[in-house]
């Protein structure tokens, strides 16, 4: 029984020559296991704090987007009747989801029946599947009309997922501003989508033309029409991803029906 005594076994292992196959495998296994525990421990223990940081960051970015929209901060400060409300919308029916609140949204999205698979033709933003429920922000005026809507959009960039918020004015066709919430693009190239100099170009651009086709896009180079913004030099894939992401989400598979409903005053 002495051979099964762990201390004895451990001593025998250590006394083996370093080049022995058993010792090599056991040492490799032990070091890897300890490292795995260390990494997992750090990730799991720190995740709540990191999630909190990210939520705070999203909040500051949303607030920054609101302050960037010309004239909005005065309107918000001037009247108490106008306030930003958070609404969960159902994209299939283009109306507010009655039974889901922003608090219960994460639970609802865990259910796969609330997602729509996208066919390769539809899936220009490279998402795979689209959530049917989305949390949007509405700013209502004194006469209960929607003055501004802020829509979360997402897509796949060059270095991973990109998440952004686009603000659209009361005519539901003029962009008021764009904020990038998170991205994994190359620092110095694609990461410039986050710089105000590029983002603020979106303010005042038109989303769709008279026929209702979404035209908002990133130009191949310098913008020439009222639907385009300049591309980022050296970041073609990121620029294309941003354009496709906006075209998907503002189009018929995204918020298109919702924007129409708001324009008709049904919201």
């Amino acid at each position, binding site marked *: 029984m002495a051979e099964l005594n762990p201390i004895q076994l451990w001593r025998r292992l*250590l006394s083996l020559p*370093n*080049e*022995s196959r058993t*010792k*090599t495998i056991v*040492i*490799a296994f032990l*070091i*890897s296991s300890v*490292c*795995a525990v*260390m*990494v997992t421990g*750090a*990730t799991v223990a*720190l995740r709540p*704090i*990191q999630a909190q*940081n*990210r939520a705070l*960051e999203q909040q500051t970015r949303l607030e920054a987007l609101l302050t960037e929209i010309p004239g909005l901060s005065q309107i918000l400060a001037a009247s108490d009747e106008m306030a930003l409300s958070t609404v969960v919308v159902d994209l299939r029916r283009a109306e507010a989801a009655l039974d889901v609140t922003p608090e219960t949204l994460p639970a609802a999205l865990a259910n796969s029946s609330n997602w729509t698979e996208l066919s390769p033709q539809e899936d220009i933003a490279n998402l795979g599947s689209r959530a049917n429920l989305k949390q949007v922000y509405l700013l209502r005026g004194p006469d209960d009309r929607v003055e501004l809507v802020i829509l979360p959009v997402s897509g796949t960039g060059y270095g991973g997922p990109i998440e952004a918020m686009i603000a659209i004015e009361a005519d539901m066709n003029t962009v008021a501003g764009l904020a990038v919430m998170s991205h994994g693009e190359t*620092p110095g190239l694609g*990461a410039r989508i986050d710089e105000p100099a590029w983002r603020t170009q979106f303010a005042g651009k038109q989303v769709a033309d008279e026929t209702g086709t979404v035209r908002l896009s990133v130009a191949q180079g310098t913008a020439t029409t009222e639907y385009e913004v300049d591309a980022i030099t050296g970041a073609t894939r990121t620029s294309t991803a941003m354009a496709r992401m906006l075209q998907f989400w503002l189009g018929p598979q995204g918020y298109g029906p919702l924007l129409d409903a708001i324009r008709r005053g049904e919201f």
Partner: protein
Amino acid sequence: MSPWSTLTDPILRQNPVTLQILGICSALAVTTTLAAAATMAAALTVVIVCAAGIISLLRNHLPSSIRLIMQIIIVASLVIVVDQLLQAYFYEMSQRLSVFVSLIATNCVVLGRTESFALHNRPLPAMVDALGNGLGYSLVLVILGSLRELFGRGTLLDVEVLRTVEQGGWFEPLNLMLLAPSAFFLLGGLVWAIRSWRPEQVETSEFGLTRVKEPGP
């Protein structure tokens, strides 16, 4: 070698960046501001000291056939832990450093010290040596970071030092300083300055021409 010289040698006489030209990539990438450079330097110093201590403890039982991959696993795990800590407690800074914290794992300074020193020495000297190298690397990063931030933005640690033209002052910021090539120029200048001051650091030319005695008539 006394512990004191183990600690101070790598700071100037054997500096990993200016003498051994290791860890250049991060020295270029993260030195646009002093705060980023200092955070990166602190992260690297913590990683290199811990890695040297752990590897030195294991040195007698580390099979030499797998020693490199084991060292990389230990260094990479420490880097992930440091990265997670930065993301939790210094979120904004970790966003600015982006991938470069994770790339400490591939920084030659770390593997160079664990492989050449920690594998052959007791834990305490190994950690002292690692600390010295960490400080040597930090010194270069802090010098580059201060110069680039001062001349590129006119600030130091976001405090205004030179009033820029935009703010109604006289200083025209040098945009080149915010781009990676400027770090190359500054680093080259730094290496040149140190080697002029201490000529023993100049490498002997390995493939230079030598004068041969001309055959007589």
